[in-house]
């Protein structure tokens, strides 16, 4: 299954590329990713809990690395959910912003795991990626992921409706949301 997404970020290409190239940053805006750890010049270790309800970990390697233009990666042999992705970075016509075009491919396995994954992606597999890119844009343009009273979770979007009412959080809810 291939999923594509695109957005324009009002920051220079060099900055947007550098942010993405530091793979540790990906878990700041990708809802499913718990963390990414660089393990070598071209290798990294990825850990995800959602959408499977249990931890999934895999190693990945960079397949293309053209500074300011293009970044590609794929999971190493033996990954439970084989996947690959490429991001293309390009200056926008305004001379200020950066267009990014993302294409990700998942090799969805058979069996129960495959069903769970298919269910998670649902009818609109690109929605998850769109939301991830929206959060990336917020991070790079404003410095943080926007929170409201109705949707205070930041990266953990939980966009399902109904949301919590648009009224201030209790101290307990605040602690849960901010982790402090």
């Amino acid at each position, binding site marked *: 299954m291939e999923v594509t997404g695109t957005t324009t970020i*009002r920051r220079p290409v060099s900055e947007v590329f550098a942010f993405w190239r530091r793979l540790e940053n990906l878990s700041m805006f990708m809802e499913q990713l718990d963390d990414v750890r660089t393990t070598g010049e071209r290798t990294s270790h990825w850990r995800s809990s959602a959408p499977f309800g249990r931890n999934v970990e895999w190693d990945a390697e960079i397949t293309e690395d053209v500074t300011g233009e293009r970044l590609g990666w794929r999971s190493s042999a033996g990954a439970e959910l084989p996947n690959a992705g490429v991001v293309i970075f390009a200056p926008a016509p305004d001379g200020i912003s950066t267009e990014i075009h993302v294409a990700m491919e998942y090799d969805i396995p058979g069996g129960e795991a495959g069903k769970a994954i298919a269910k998670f992606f649902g009818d609109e597999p690109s929605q998850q990626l769109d939301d991830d890119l929206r959060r990336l844009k*917020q991070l790079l343009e*404003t410095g*943080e992921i*926007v929170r409201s009273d109705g949707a205070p979770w930041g990266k953990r979007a939980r966009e399902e409706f109904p949301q919590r009412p648009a009224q*201030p*959080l209790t101290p307990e809810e605040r602690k849960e949301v901010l982790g402090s």
Partner: protein
Amino acid sequence: MKATVWAGRNSVEVREVPDPSILSRRDAIVRITSTAICGSDLHLVDGYIPTMQNGDVMGHEFMGEVVEVGPGVPPDRLRPGDRVVVPFPIACGACAACASELYSCCENSNPNAGIAEKMFGHPVAGIFGYSHLTGGFAGGQAQYARVPFADVGPLKITSDLSDEQVLFLSDILPTGYMGAEMCDIQPSDVVAVWGAGPVGQFAMDSARALGAAAVIAIDKEPYRLRMAAEAGHIPVDFTEVDVRSQLLELTGGRGPDKCIDAVGMEAVHGASHIHAYDRLKQAARLETDRPHALRQAILSCRSGGIVSVIGVYGGFIDKFPAGAWMNRALTLRTGQCHVHRYMQPLLERIERGELDPTRIITHRLSLDEAPHGYDIFKNKQDDCEKVVLTP
């Protein structure tokens, strides 16, 4: 704290809710000193804006004193003790829309942008107290409010102007002004304004301030028309005359050069069968908005004129007079107000005495009396034009 909350369709209650706190680095907490009920709040109460939830704190017109700021708000921009008016759209100040001063289209301030995008094609900014479609932000008809991107929005008031003189910079004065500004008013222009509610009144005053030769007010409530007439505008009661004929009469057959729709989605038509047609379709959800004012504005406007829409629409309309619009070279301009753009220049107009926003206030109530305020405003009882609430 106490807050006015949406408790279901046609139900507003004052409830005890948690006090707001800083959630993001660029937040401020404001202790509210004055807040108001807006005509667009009635669309929420009447159930025409989707994604409201029981317990949502209402209100997007408010001002007060900053009591706390997050670490991301520079002290030279805002600090505790500052007296501020808060603009109703929430804007980040950094995206392409904000850079173009299109603050109500901010690309980053709505955490539910994905839903708004599905409905409107592209996302819209977060708005205080105005459904989850515009972010699910708690509103300002309360004792305190959390203000995100506080380094961008709030306007500091350093002069001794009263709350009532500056409160409406939060929404209705800039909204009315933008309605007139979009008309590119020339000295020879006759401007007709549909709706003599608070926004309509300010659109009329702004049209005159921008140099219109004459301003016509169209409504059906005698007290609203009286208020417009007292401010020097020409009243037209659409229940007593045929609006198009009257407008031709008032303009030597030319039609108004510029038309402003300050009514929006819940318009009432003078001819009961036409009103019934759209009211029925709306009740059956076959169309979401009743566009009588917009249709009439398009048909009435002189060829080559501008129709400026500041009344709120939420969804879809039928029988849009595309033929009149196209063949007579009309320009249709619109937008939720980009309030940030207008606050400082309009503050200066108030200071110079060119605009008097207090002239529309008819009711001053406590926050506890908010449900009553909604009731009289919605039902146009007791000559209610504008309700200001004091928490």
